[in-house]
């Protein structure tokens, strides 16, 4: 039978390696910390669930070699909603597949609760995946799909049935349990895929762009649903997406990835307000970049001078020493217009006004030639109205300007 399954499916190449934990039969999960009303209680909150240490993944050989992951290290805490965010081809799905066991790292370690799982085949890792395509088994019913993992673990029939019923309730699919997966809608398939992955009570749930196939309204619904599920089950979620809005709204922490590297890890607020690199600032939200020169610095704050001789105090990333020419980042909503150009930190000409209903975007052509966008939230009592062509000043909020690493 062995020859029937080769290559294509990252066939586990090291079946003789010890299984995760101390089990002898290979496919059993390590004992869990405990379960209360089906809600799993993590052993020690605050510990790392997953630790990725210096992982490299190279595809191809010789001259065609491509490093999909270039020495990535990241720690994911227990009970955390962790998001890998980045454009397509940045390596986020590769990292997820390495954690799931579909691919094996070219170098480095992947620790799950302190044990290296990198050489284990997928069926020996207490980790489950929700696939982008859902990958539900078309020859099984909804209930059979959800019970599949437990069945493969050799759980007794009664336990499987109870657990499946519980999962069906959790994702509100009780009514459709006898349906074939081809007979339910995309959103329902999504729920079944989630239930199927959660049923074996994995230590970590991996989600590979699970919402990308859903329409906008359903996606919003499922975002809330996912957060609820993560909260109720207490399982660590590792969520892969290219949608920055999705990442910001759902995550406890985000890792922004680009070209096989993790550029920055932090809370959504960290990432948004204090981006460390130009790519991060640019990828997440709208941003203004300004060129300036560092004239002096105190710990954590540098004074940057613009061409117009105006200066601004700007924070900078930890462990970075800003000197000379630097790039500053200012979010559009962290700045405001003032009618008197002399009163602003910088000044320019209003070139365009775009009304969005909730807010208005003012496009300002700076005296230095760059464009700067100011987002002003509309209110009933907007005191000043501006017109295109007017000379205006731009005032930064306290701490709005940040120095970028590159």
């Amino acid at each position, binding site marked *: *039978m062995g020859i029937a399954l080769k290559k294509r499916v990252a*066939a586990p190449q090291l079946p003789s390696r010890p299984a995760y934990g101390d089990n002898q039969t290979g496919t059993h999960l390590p004992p869990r910390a405990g379960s209360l009303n089906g809600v799993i209680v993590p052993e020690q909150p605050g510990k790392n669930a997953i630790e990725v240490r210096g992982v490299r993944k190279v595809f191809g050989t010789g001259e065609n070699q491509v490093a999909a992951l270039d020495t990535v290290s990241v720690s994911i805490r227990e009970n955390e909603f962790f998001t890998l965010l980045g454009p397509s081809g940045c390596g986020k799905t590769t990292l997820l597949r390495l954690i799931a066991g*579909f691919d094996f790292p070219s170098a480095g370690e992947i620790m799950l609760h302190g044990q290296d799982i990198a050489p284990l085949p997928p069926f020996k890792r207490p980790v489950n995946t929700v696939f982008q395509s859902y990958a539900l088994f078309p020859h099984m019913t909804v209930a059979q799909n959800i019970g599949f993992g437990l069945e493969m673990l050799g759980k007794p029939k009664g336990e499987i049935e109870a657990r499946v019923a519980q999962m069906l309730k959790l994702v509100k699919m009780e009514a459709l349990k006898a349906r074939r997966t081809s007979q339910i809608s995309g959103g329902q398939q999504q729920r079944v895929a989630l239930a199927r992955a959660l049923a074996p009570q994995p230590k970590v749930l991996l989600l590979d762009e699970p919402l990308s196939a859903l329409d906008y309204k359903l996606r919003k619904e499922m975002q809330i649903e996912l957060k609820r599920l993560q909260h109720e089950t207490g399982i660590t979620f590792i969520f892969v997406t290219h949608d920055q809005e999705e990442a910001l709204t759902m995550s406890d922490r985000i890792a922004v990835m680009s070209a096989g590297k993790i550029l920055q890890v932090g809370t959504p607020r960290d990432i948004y307000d204090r981006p460390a690199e130009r790519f991060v600032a640019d990828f997440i939200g709208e941003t203004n970049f300004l060129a300036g020169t560092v004239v002096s610095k105190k710990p954590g704050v540098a004074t940057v001078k613009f061409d117009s001789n105006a200066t601004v105090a700007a924070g900078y990333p930890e462990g970075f020493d800003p000197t000379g020419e630097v790039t500053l980042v200012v979010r559009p909503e962290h700045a405001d217009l003032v009618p008197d150009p002399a009163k602003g930190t910088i000044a320019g000409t209003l070139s365009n006004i775009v009304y969005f209903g909730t807010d208005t975007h003012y496009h300002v052509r700076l005296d230095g030639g760059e464009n700067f966008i100011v987002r002003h939230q509309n209110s009933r009592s907007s005191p000043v109205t501006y017109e295109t062509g007017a000379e205006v000043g731009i005032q930064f909020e306290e701490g709005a300007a940040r120095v970028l690493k590159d």
Partner: protein
Amino acid sequence: MTTATLSPTMPSKAALFEAQAVKAGARRNRLLSLPALLIIGIFGVLPLLIICVYSFLAAAPYGGVQWRFSTDAYLNFLFQRDIFDDTLQFTPDFLIIYLRSFLFAVVTTIICLLLGFPTAYFMATRPPAQRNWWVLLITIPFWSNLLVRTLAIMFIIRDEGLINNALLGLGVIDKPITMLYTNFAIQLGLLYAFLPFMVLPLYSSLEKLDFRLIEAAYDLYATRRQVLWRVIIPLSKPGIIAGCLLVFIPALGAYVTPLILGGGVHLMIGDLIAQQFGSGRNWPLGCAQALILMAAVLVALFFYVRNTSGKVQHG
């Protein structure tokens, strides 16, 4: 048509025209299906009717039939009429040949499935650009006549053939192993002839398999063996059914292979039937044997399909 209901006594011209158009359309449709019906009728139904009629006639002494109703052909299938007292005696000779043929066909199907499945899986998991080359390789044997290929097997396995000469030359054996004109030879020939008919439908089924499902199964703690039995095989069932039918039915009625490789000693149904029209000079018996084979296949097919379909809904 609605206008017609408004004035039921005198249908309007439009309605009349519409009705005519519908009729003409139906006629045209029938006309278009005529070629197909003709072909099925002339080459399928008519010969079958002739066989059916002939099977109920008496045999003429030098071949052909006498136009006289007789059930002798069917009686002869199981019984032999005593030359002296005209009593019927049960003779299982034909039945044994039928059972032997079924056995050959079943073994051929099973071995073809066991060999064909890994082959088809291998082909289906090659990069897309490579796959057509593999299909081409599988179809290459079809480029030459089966008779020629069967004769080639004969030259390979006969006493002074390739295999025996090689083994003798290497000193593995002292005297040649008799392989030709044995059951082994027939089985080998059948396997060789029908393997591609198993591989191709299996391949087309496996090629459409969503390999992400296999990853999903691995992810859900299925071992390789479980993935095979719980995911790959159930999902390739349409291909397995098609392949088994395509191998079993022709293998059951195989003629050339057992004739040449069995040396006429180890008969199969096909040879038996052919004999009745040749040296046997009993056309009605040949017709009856053909019909009995057909009925047996239909019954087997009925149970096979009933037991395998319905369990898989390919979505």
